[in-house]
């Protein structure tokens, strides 16, 4: 599904190398988790994959189902099936959440040469999906993320994911700012979307989220590289011993 080879990335504005040769293969239907200390490059990886400005790829490649991602505009990547659940979802005053969702769904359909979804069809679908995530009518009507609590913002991200039905979902610290109940709700939303044709890359600091979203593979990232990969037990090791032991071991 997602194939990252020797990805080297520096900041455009300053001469600072953030990713120093990331290699990652994610198979269809699998859930990978990336853990790592602050500043290891986890969020940069998610931004580079989704096409945010400000980064320069100096070496390496990233492909989605064999298609080069790095050459595409962010909207093309989205239409190709990539989705980033933001760590800090952006508030957009004046744009209604529903309008936003519908514009996004139809823009992607149009880009893929599919028919646009009718207003009635869309409404039915969004109501059903919103209900599962306990998103009420008021949240759908309000401007995008305006006045939403931390938990509401993350639930709104998952709603977008559910509506857009991407193939490759990147969750960037989706657990940050969530209480236990909200984390459960969000995880259930994610788990409901797990399927054979859909892969996940879950970026997190803590093992906690991985109790709910069970990964197939866990990677430890440090200083711009993936330094260790393993099964779910690797996350438990981090939880119990911290990163220091693992980093010392691979150093």
């Amino acid at each position: 599904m997602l194939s990252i080879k020797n990805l080297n990335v520096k900041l455009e504005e300053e001469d600072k190398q953030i990713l120093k040769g990331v290699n990652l293969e994610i198979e269809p239907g699998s859930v990978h988790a990336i853990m790592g200390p602050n500043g290891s490059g986890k969020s940069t990886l998610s931004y580079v994959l989704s096409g945010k400005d400000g980064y320069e790829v100096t070496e390496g490649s990233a492909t989605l189902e064999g298609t080069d991602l790095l050459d595409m505009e962010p909207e093309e990547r989205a239409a190709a099936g990539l989705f980033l659940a933001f760590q800090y979802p952006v508030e957009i005053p004046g744009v209604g959440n529903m309008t936003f969702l519908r514009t996004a769904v139809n823009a992607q359909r149009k880009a893929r040469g599919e028919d646009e979804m009718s207003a009635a069809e869309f409404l039915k679908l969004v109501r059903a999906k919103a209900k599962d995530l306990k998103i009420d009518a008021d949240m759908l009507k309000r401007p995008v993320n305006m006045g939403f609590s931390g938990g509401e913002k993350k639930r709104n991200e998952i709603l977008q994911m559910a509506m857009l039905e991407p193939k490759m979902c990147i969750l960037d610290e989706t657990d940050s700012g969530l209480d236990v109940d909200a984390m459960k709700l969000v995880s259930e939303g994610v788990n409901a979307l797990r399927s054979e044709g859909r892969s996940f890359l879950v970026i997190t600091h803590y093992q906690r989220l991985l109790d709910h979203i069970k990964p197939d593979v866990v990677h430890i990232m440090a200083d711009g590289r993936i330094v260790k990969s393993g099964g779910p037990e690797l996350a438990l090791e981090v939880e119990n011993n911290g990163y220091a032991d693992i980093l010392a071991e691979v150093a």
Partner: protein
Amino acid sequence: MGDLAPKTDAVDMIIAGREITASGWSQTARHEALSRLRAMGLPDRRDEYWKFTRPDTLTQAVAPEAAVFDNDEAPLFDGLDRLKIVFVDGVFDVGASDDLTLEGVTIERLATSTSDLHWARDIYGVLETNGQTPVQRPLAALNTACATDGILIHVTGKASKPISLVYIHKSETSDAILHHCIKLDAGADLTVLENGPAAARFNKVMEVDIADGAAFHHVRAQGRDHERRAATHLFARLGTESHFNSFTLSVNGVLTRNEAVVELNGNDAKATVAGACLGDGNFHHDDTVFITHDAVNCQSRQVFKKVLRNGAVGVFQGKILVKEGAQKTDGYQISQSLLLDGDSQFLAKPELEIYADDVICSHGSTSGAIDEDALFYLRARGISEGEATDLLTLSFLAEAVDEIEDEKLKEEILTRLTSWLARRR
């Protein structure tokens, strides 16, 4: 004050050949206006009030030519139930206009109103004169002196439908001067719509006298005719518990100066002046607003939003004057621009002048670019850069459009804005 000679010479040149000594009830007002104009002279670039907008092309004797824009859209407000009054290059078009009859309302043309004791004598040029202090508005005096036509509307009750003034531009050299007077009796209610480019050069004055408890709603659209020029003045006088709401949408037009001069004379009155504009290229748009609070417990709002690109210039000069004794005044003013590139300019001069001690007044002015984080967020969801920019632009303008009270009219304006944004992508 300096040397007035060049300014008064300009007056002689612009009034030469124009009919001023029309007979009838407005004759006195016209001659007085001419005297006012001669005393003031026409504005020039040295005037503080015209610091950001060059008046030359508005004051020169002959209007600069303006190609007629071939508009393929259905005219705005077409689908609404309304009483339509059409002017083509400033000339009343009887064939295209509806019958000037509406229950509870008398409607007449300025050019054909003959009664010597006409009600409009108490309004025509009167509100304009009041509006000449403390800031001079010579183009409005020119209008009072030289207007060739206009509509006189007297409302006694609640008008059953809006009166819609449609201004069509057909001649490249037209130089139109129209003057409307509107009188709302106590408790009356009227909506006036205006749309169209009007002429190569358009000088328009609208004087609105709103009696106690009456309500006046105004929605205006100055469309996509690129080369047109316009100087408009809206003078309003508000009685006790009366209500005034005016919204203007402007798109393109090489030069537009819209002045709104509002006097809150009765207690508990409310006034809103709002505008949204979309400027591209050699576009210069100036909103100049002067609101005077001269009574107790009145509210006023000024909400102006401008989206500018490719070197377009937006100007806002807004003032709230709170006179002595105008306690419990609530005055609000915001002017904001969205600059889509580095070539565009927004020039703002917000002013407060307050002589009462128990008031709330706030003003703010901002200039900014599209929010990059918001743009990326929308694009990451599959929305193209162009469509995402439009969505953010529309959301920026929506705050001003929101000031329109009537939901149908609000929808009409938003729909039009959306299609304009899409077609210029």
